[in-house]
């Protein structure tokens, strides 16, 4: 493709330059005699079609090259800016322009990260946090989606529980944690339940909105072609609600990371990245504090990216 493109450019290229010569001759011939001008005119008309096409193509290529250069520049800027800031941080910390006790240099943090990885200390904290997120969040999201789908498709269920859930939703879930501690004691269970409740509410509300957002025409098309009961649910309601379900999952992930960190801040925990951050503050080990922050950030980013990827994979009809 690009090869033929290039050869055709080459062959018309010579004709193009000849045409340009003819044109400049024409421009200088204004004061000359009529016969000379008609000659020049004839020369131009003969070379015109190929010449004009050539010039248009050259202009179009220049435009495309300009667009590409701008895209490359944006990419370079988006990568370079954070690196520059990190280097600046490093330099400032080393030169004591900023206090390295509060802002340890990035290399110091990385060294601490390496040390904690090697000693297994990091996993001691990252493991429990991941477990709480995945178990609590996974179960909470599943339950939220199921309840949301049921409430979205049953008028009676929604009438019964819709107002109740709406009233409970704005309650800060973290405020329930002491109650959970009181009931279940300082075990793993209340932490998982706190994450469960958080994701459940986000997903229940997102899924109900997803079902309600399905175009009425599509529900009617389902009815008109005989989709009733479970078939209607499987082929119309479920896929129709999926876009909202996925955007809900992304919101829920962010909220769940916040809640799990907060729960681990409390005295009820001696593991988890939240505990690591809190404890490092109390013992004043700033590098570890930053390591905790970094790792929890990475966990959130990885989960969100996984969700985006699986959305693209599972909902191919949304692509493009």
């Amino acid at each position, binding site marked *: 493709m690009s090869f033929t493109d290039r050869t055709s450019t080459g062959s018309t290229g010579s004709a193009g330059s000849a045409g340009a010569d003819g044109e400049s001759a024409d421009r200088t011939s204004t004061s000359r005699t009529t016969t000379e001008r008609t000659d020049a005119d004839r020369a131009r008309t003969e070379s015109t079609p190929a010449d004009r096409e050539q010039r248009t193509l050259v202009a179009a290529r220049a435009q495309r090259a300009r667009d590409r250069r701008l895209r490359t520049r944006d990419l370079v800027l988006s990568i370079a800016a954070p690196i520059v800031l990190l280097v600046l941080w490093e330099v400032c910390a080393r030169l004591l322009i900023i206090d390295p006790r509060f802002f340890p240099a990035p290399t110091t943090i990385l060294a601490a990260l390496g040390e904690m990885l090697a000693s297994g200390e990091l996993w001691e904290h990252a493991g429990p946090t991941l477990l709480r997120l995945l178990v609590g969040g996974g179960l909470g999201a599943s339950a939220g989606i199921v309840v949301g789908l049921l409430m979205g498709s049953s008028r009676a269920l929604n009438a019964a529980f819709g107002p109740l859930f709406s009233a409970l939703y704005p309650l800060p879930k973290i405020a329930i944690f002491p109650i959970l501690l009181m009931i279940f004691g300082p075990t793993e269970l209340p932490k998982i339940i706190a994450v469960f409740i958080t994701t459940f509410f986000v997903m229940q509300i997102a899924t109900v909105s997803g079902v309600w957002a399905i*175009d009425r*025409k*599509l529900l*009617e*098309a389902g*009815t*008109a*072609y*005989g*989709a009733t009961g479970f*078939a209607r649910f499987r*082929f*119309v309601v479920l*896929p*129709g609600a*999926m876009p909202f379900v996925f955007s809900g999952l992304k919101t829920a992930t962010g909220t769940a990371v916040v809640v799990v960190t907060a729960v681990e801040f409390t005295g009820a925990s001696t593991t988890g990245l939240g505990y690591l951050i809190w404890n490092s503050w109390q013992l004043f080990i700033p590098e570890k504090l930053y390591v905790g922050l970094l790792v929890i950030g990475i966990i959130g980013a990885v989960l969100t990216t996984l969700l985006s990827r699986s959305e693209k994979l599972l*909902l*191919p*009809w949304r692509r*493009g």
Partner: protein
Amino acid sequence: MQPVDHATVVAEDVSKVFFSGGEPVWALENFSLTIEPGSFTCIVGPSGCGKSTFLRILGGLEERTVGEVTMSGADHPVPAAFVFQEHGVFPWMNVLDNVAFGLRMSGEGTRERHGIAMDWLRRVRLESFASSYPHQLSGGMRQRVAIARAFATGSPVLLMDEPLGALDAQTRMLMQEELIALWEQERKTVLMVTHDIDEAIILSDRVIVMSGRPGTVREDIAVPFERPRSFDIERSPEFGELRSRIWNLLREDVRSAEETA
């Protein structure tokens, strides 16, 4: 090819009343209509006259307040296949699954329903788009999918609610030609709602002109042109006469619908 089982649609004194605020609104009043098997009937009327409501009642998408509706094809898995104006195809299914949807719901096996659906895709010239999703198609192509889906059910009755209404004028004319050709091969019982008088004359054997709200039958006009038809009939004087006759019936109602809206 199995013998095509045609159907008769009979509606007797169908009324539809809903409440807007405290006031009852009559969308349809004592609307009666009998449709011959294997005929193509168009309903035209001012907007808000209840023509779509009537079609939706026939298709089981809306409840009637009173009245009787009988369809002789009621024992078919899909008694009446509906074609919507737009957005009626499922965006999450590829073209083939969309066309096969009615068959899937009536319990047809995978191989059979895909065979029938492919056959219909060929007839609407979309066989190369079988695995595309609707968002990758143009508006006209999507409506061809919707029409193929309706025909593919094998239902004896097709109900079309302004199926070409959202298309641009030129695509629309192309689709009208294709629809005539498809229907002339199949001879299903078709009831179509349209606001386009030309379209009604070109496609149908019979045009029902409705009055403004509450909707009743103002006039029942037989369209005299021979089948198979082509767009050449548009140039005949009878066509012009018919068009102005229908327009004269509609003009006053369209104006008052426009002013009250």
